[in-house]
């Protein structure tokens, strides 16, 4: 039987796999491409029939400046930075020690706490929103950064993730540290945390993207623009009553998405490693 050399087989395989990957990538990227194209189109061209990638007149300036000036988008993005940073900081402060306690320390309540964490994974934010809202209101805390951040201080996902990650951390190193005289807190601070950089990166990507993009909760607890987060800045262009300004909406979307893509690109290597090392099994 005549046979093509292995190299050719492999080449064909690679071409086929690229073909499917590009097809998939096309599917994934389609909305982004359209977002960018729309963000540089004048309103009248957005709906011209057909799929003409190149706009006949550029309205990038108008759309982007409208996105930035009509709503205090920059202010919102700054709020977003503060809120995401605050949430992430508290989440890490809670989840790293919590994850360590669940993974490496033995205490009687451990299974109960872990059970609660697993339970928490299934509870969507909508369930707890109203009681927390009322509590915040009674404490006179609405319209504060604190109110936007509070429900997310607890990330059961984070606790779970760090627990999984720490599970695979060599027990011997912790033993060595105890022999060396580290207190448990110092083990967390000086041994566990530096080793958890990939997990922190992975977690940060999830945390930042979801709270940067969150619309639901900020809309409930903030009524002034002082604390609003980025998606609220886009709401102004999306109006069911009078019709949406698609160009500015997409420009706004592009503006607020860009930092996240940068964050992801920056953390990508660590992120993938973090996910891999937490051993999703």
């Amino acid at each position, binding site marked *: 039987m005549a046979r093509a050399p292995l190299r050719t087989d492999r080449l064909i395989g690679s071409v086929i796999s690229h073909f499917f990957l590009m097809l998939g990538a096309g599917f994934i990227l389609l909305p982004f491409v359209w977002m960018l194209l729309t963000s540089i189109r004048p309103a*009248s061209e957005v*709906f011209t029939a057909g799929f003409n990638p190149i706009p006949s007149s550029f309205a990038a300036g108008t759309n982007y400046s409208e996105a930035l000036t009509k709503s205090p988008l920059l202010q919102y993005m700054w709020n977003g930075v503060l809120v995401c940073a605050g949430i992430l900081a508290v989440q890490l402060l809670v989840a790293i020690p919590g994850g360590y306690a669940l993974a490496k320390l033995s205490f009687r309540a451990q299974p109960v706490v872990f059970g609660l964490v697993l339970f928490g994974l299934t509870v969507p934010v909508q369930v707890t929103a109203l009681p927390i809202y009322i509590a915040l209101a009674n404490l006179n805390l609405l319209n504060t950064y604190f109110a936007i951040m509070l429900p997310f201080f607890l990330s059961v996902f984070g606790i779970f993730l760090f627990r999984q990650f720490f599970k695979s951390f060599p027990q011997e190193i912790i033993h060595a540290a105890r022999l060396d005289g580290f207190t448990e807190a110092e083990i967390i601070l000086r041994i566990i945390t530096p080793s958890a950089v990939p997990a922190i990166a992975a977690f940060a990507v999830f945390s930042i993207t979801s709270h940067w993009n969150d619309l639901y909760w900020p809309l409930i607890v903030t009524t002034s623009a002082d604390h609003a987060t980025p998606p609220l800045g886009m709401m102004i262009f999306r109006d069911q009553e009078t019709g949406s300004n698609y160009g500015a909406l997409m420009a706004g979307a592009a503006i607020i998405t860009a930092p996240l893509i940068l964050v992801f690109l920056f953390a990508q290597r660590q992120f993938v490693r973090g996910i891999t090392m937490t051993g999703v099994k």
Partner: protein
Amino acid sequence: MDRRTLLQSAAGFAALGLMSPMIARAQSGVELVVTHCFPGHDGFHTEIANAFMAANPDVKISFTNSPPTYEEGHSLILRQALTNQLPDVYYSGFHLLPPLSRQLTERGQITHLDSFLATEGDAWKTENYSPRILDLGNFDGKQMAMPFNTSTPIFYFNEELVTQAGGDPANFPDTWEGVFELAAKIDALGDDVDGFYMGIHTEAGDWFWQALVYSNGGELMDAAEKTVAFGDEKGLAALTLTKRMVDEGKMNLRENQQGVQQFYAGKTGILVQSTAGLRATTDSVGTNFTLRTARYPLADATNGRLPTGGNAQVILTTDPAKLDAAWRFSKWVSGPEGQTVAVKFSGYMPTSLVAEQEQYLGAFYKENPNYTTSVGQIPVARKWFGYPGKNSNKIIDIQRENINLAMRGEMPVAEVLAKMVADTQGLI
């Protein structure tokens, strides 16, 4: 355990004792906190408020974030009522005014306007507002709100497509029969061209259904709001119209926004929409085609009416120190200064009689005849109806499903109507 303790215990567990509220508002003169729905309205609200503040330096207007819909705004206000976080002034959708004013009156968290109107005097009243407009904000015998934005459904059409189909843009049909005939011709112009679109089967509320029933001279409920009233032949005519849109008007049952987008793209001949979207539609259409508007046909020329969309301003503050400023603001926004801006920005109909005068909107209307269509419909505008009870949204959802059944031909229209009446009655 009563509600109070329930809520207090809810608060108790969250008593983290970490922060005190740091909402220290700069108090130079009076500050009014204002909430309106639709972030898209921010533009004209800000402009109006700026002008107001320039004229009234002692008053500071500050806006909260805008809820994206009337429903969400309503929910926001109710939550804030619970927690005493209410703004001083709020713009409520007309259909939500009855529950809002009733609940807040009960809680003592709203100020009715009768005494202010009395102070201004009747002459002022008649000079500025038509009684029909004022009535939109009047419930249980009290003036609860000053109407701000009002709208009626109108027809938008694509002049080029109408012409191509042999229609006359200058004499747009004023009967459904004429509309459907024209729509069918437009539809025949090409595979990718639709004749007619009205998102009655997919819209958010039941405004279009109300328009169909009212324009046929029908009623949704009896005067006591106990019994469903659209089970009659007028209701049947209304529901039959939906079926005819599909059969005769060749309407595709697209999702609402997609139907609208299709019109923007110049691929739909006739679109039924609120006049409120005129400005946005004009912008979106741009140079794609020539946008024209026409009046909504009244099947019953004498008793036919149209529901008034839009919103009215309520004063929620009960603080005597703020009331005067709030009333001044109320007068301003519903007066010619406010209305001029709002109309130009949206396409809404003015609520102020004065605003229609030459120095305000007169010139604008002459230059933009599309904007006058709805003004012509003011005489037939009536209140936007809201169902009583707990299930108003559910009623609307169920009705919409029934309308779909009729339009999709899955059930004879008469049967659907009977079912729809029964479903509605069951939920009241």
